[in-house]
């Protein structure tokens, strides 16, 4: 399989993740869609690393994974704090700054 196929799959997964961020209301599911987008970008990095025959892309994908893990930890802690205050995981409920 040529790297172009992998990049095409990464594009499709990225767009699906973006749609999920746009249409879902549950903050947890929005988070999962962001993870899906990060995974799609990782797949593109790995495909480009394969195309150029160098492992630099894989190192960058590794760093993306580390940053994603840290982001998930902090994001889920924020979600827990919001849930404790509002008793809801919906992004429609977290509107205290609006008024």
């Amino acid at each position, binding site marked *: 399989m040529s*790297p172009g196929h992998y990049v095409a799959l990464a594009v499709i997964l990225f767009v699906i993740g973006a749609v*999920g961020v746009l249409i879902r209301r549950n903050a947890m599911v929005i988070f999962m869609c962001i993870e899906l987008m990060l995974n799609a970008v990782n797949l593109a990095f790995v495909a480009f690393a394969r195309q150029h025959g160098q492992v630099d892309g894989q190192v960058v994908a590794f760093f993306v994974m580390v940053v994603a893990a840290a982001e998930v930890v902090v994001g889920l802690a924020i979600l827990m704090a919001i849930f404790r205050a509002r008793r809801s995981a919906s992004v429609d409920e977290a509107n205290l700054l609006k008024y």
Partner: protein
Amino acid sequence: MSAALAAAPAVVAASTATATTTSVVFWVLAIVSVAAALGMILSPRAVHCAVLLAVVMLSLAVLYLTAGAPFLAAVQIIVYTGAVLMLFLFVIMIVGVSSADSLRETIRGQRLWAGLAAIALLVLLALIVGHAAIGPAAPAFPIYGAGNVSSIARLIFTRYFFPFEVTSALLITAALGAMVLAHRERTSPKPAQRDLSQQRVAGAHPTPLPGPGTYARHNAVDFPALLPDGTPAELSVSPVISGRAGAREAVSEALREAAGALPASPAGTAQPDRPDQPGPAHPGPNGNGQEGSPS
């Protein structure tokens, strides 16, 4: 030398077979991952979304393997599927499994505009990727493939050494931030054993709550027990069960049915499951799992 020349056709045949296997694996996993991703953004329950995301991540791990990144495949399974998704599932269990996302639009026309934006993004990315002229895969390097882990390690500890060190600071900051955010200051003193016992006796129910009516009239825990005077005891059904969307109607229906059936039937000869009995059908033991049932 001659042995190497003789072995060359066998190597070529093996590489074509490997290419066929790789393409089959790629197409199967591409279809599986795209279907799972679509199911993830369409499924109303957060737990289903997490499980489908696990499917996507495992497929991507195998795709990394076929793309010559075995180290990343292992890290993907360990870090993403093992740690990140478990964290997601933990938080979903804390927030509540029953917190189904309502698929009703709260902003008018949001789906339409999201779909249009998605199509625009897809066209844009497809044009970019199509114009990029992505060439075929490079022939396998000596540092590529078998020595994958050692070559990644060499890069991380030489060229990417500073980002790697900054990553450690990021991880420590994230751990501290999670602890600070998840910590809750206690605003009232912790109740001691004496306070707890006083609360229990002072409350409406010093005794344990009554059990459900399992085996009394129906083989399900969402069916209320009957009090000595024949009225159903609403307290006997756990609020976790009666709080679910589909079960609430089932329980109230069962309550109505129990209240209506008892005075009419003489004691000892009650047959609540008579088929000619008017009224709605029995809710059944799985009447509490119908999230999407019309109410």
